[in-house]
C-alpha cells in the first residue's frame, strides 16, 4: 500500500495524520521510560514521515497545476504542520538516544503514569497468529491498545480492526502492566483445540 503509485493526496494526508499522532505518543513514552528501542522506532517513523511529506508536496504541486495555487494553500499548511509536529516529537525522543543521563525526574514521572508502552512478540505457534484484531478485541478484553505492528521491517501504525496478526509480528502496545502481562501470557499459549475457550476466559 505504501508504494501504490495511485495513492491519492487524501490517503497521504490521512497517513501523515495517523503517523504524527503515533509519533507524539511514542516519543514522550520513549522519554518517560528511557527506552532506546522506542526512541529508535520514533526515528524510523520520522524518516517515514519525511518520505510521505515529500510525496504529499509533489502531489500538491501536481494538483495546483489543475486547480490553481490558492485552493492548495490550506493543504500545504496542514502537511507542513504535520511534518513539523513529527519532527519536534522526534526531538523529544532524541534525548534518549543521545545517551544523556536522564534527569531523575523521568523515573518518577514514569512511575506516576498508569499506562506503559511495551513490545509483545508473536512467536511461532501463538494462538494469536492469523487472528483479526476485531475478533481479538484486545482493548476490551485485556485493556491493551496496539499502537503499531512491526512486520518484516515495516511498521504498520494504528492498525485497524481488519488487520490480522502474523507470526513474527512485534506489537507495540499501550496499557496497564497487568494487561500487557496478560497479553504476553495469551500470546505464549500454543495453538490447540482449546484455543477458543482459553481466549474467551480472558473476558
Amino acid at each position, binding site marked *: 500500500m505504501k508504494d501504490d503509485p495511485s495513492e491519492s*493526496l*487524501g*490517503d497521504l*494526508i*490521512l497517513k501523515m*495524520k*495517523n503517523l*504524527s*499522532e503515533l509519533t*507524539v*505518543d511514542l516519543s*514522550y513514552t520513549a*522519554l*518517560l521510560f528511557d527506552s532506546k528501542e522506542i526512541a529508535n522506532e520514533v526515528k524510523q517513523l520520522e524518516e517515514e514521515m519525511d518520505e510521505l511529506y515529500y510525496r504529499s508536496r509533489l502531489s500538491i504541486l501536481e494538483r495546483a497545476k489543475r486547480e490553481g495555487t*490558492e*485552493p*492548495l*494553500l*490550506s*493543504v500545504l*499548511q*496542514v502537511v*507542513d*504542520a*504535520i511534518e*513539523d*509536529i513529527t*519532527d*519536534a*516529537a522526534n*526531538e*523529544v525522543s532524541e*534525548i534518549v538516544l543521545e545517551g*544523556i*543521563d*536522564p*534527569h531523575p*525526574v*523521568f523515573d*518518577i*514521572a514514569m512511575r*506516576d*503514569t498508569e499506562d506503559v508502552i511495551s513490545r509483545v512478540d508473536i512467536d511461532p505457534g501463538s494462538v494469536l497468529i492469523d487472528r483479526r484484531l476485531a475478533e481479538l478485541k484486545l*482493548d*476490551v478484553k485485556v*485493556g491493551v491498545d496496539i499502537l503499531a505492528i512491526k512486520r518484516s521491517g515495516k511498521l504498520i501504525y*494504528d492498525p*485497524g*480492526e481488519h488487520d490480522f496478526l502474523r507470526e513474527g509480528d512485534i506489537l507495540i502496545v499501550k496499557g496497564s502492566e497487568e494487561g500487557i502481562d496478560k497479553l504476553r501470557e495469551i500470546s505464549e499459549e500454543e495453538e490447540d483445540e482449546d484455543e477458543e475457550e482459553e481466549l474467551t476466559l480472558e473476558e
Partner: protein
Amino acid sequence: MDEEPVTVKEMLIELKDNSELAVYLAYSALMFRDRTIADEVSELEEKIDELKARMRMAAMLSVRNPDDAQKVGPLLKIASAADRISNSASEIAELLQRGIQIHPIIFEALERAEEKVARCRILDESELVGCSLGEADLESKVGMMVIAVRRSGGGWIWGPGDDVKISSGDVLIARGPGDGSMILREIARGIRKLKDFGGEPR
C-alpha cells in the same frame, strides 16, 4: 487559570498531556470544522508557552554547578519541542480561525480516520450526571477514553482520573472509534442509556 503545576515533574507531565491534546484537538477541529475546538487549541498553545517559560525559570534556578547544568539541558529541550508541537498544532487550527478556504480533500481525509475525537456537553437529562468517570467506565462500554473535562464553571481537567465526577454542563472530550463518538454524544444528551452498552453505571 486553575491550579498550577509546582514541581518540574508536574510541569513535564502537563507539557506532555497538553501538547498531545493540542495535536488531537487540532485534527478534530478541522474534522468537525469547529471553531470552538480551534480556539481551545490556541488556549493550549498559550498554556504551553507559559509552562515552557516556567520550566526555564525552574531550570535556571536549580543550577548550582556544571553538573546540574548538564542535567537541565534535556528538560529545556523537551520544553522547546513540546512548544513546537503545540505551535504546529495551532497552525492547523488557525486555518479555521482565519477563515482561510480549506480544501475539501482535507475533510475527506480526516473523516476516514478510524479514531475520532468527540466533544459533548452533558445535559441534565444524561444519566452521567453525578457519576464518576470510573463508574461510567466509558472506555470499556463504548470504547471512548475521556481526555479532558471542561467544568461548567470554567477550568479544565486534563487526563481526568477515575474519581472525577461528571456534572451537568460539563464538556467531555473523548477519543475512540467513530461509532463510540456518536453513542457518547447521545448518552450525554440523555437520548441513550449506558445499559444498552454493557450495564448501568456501577
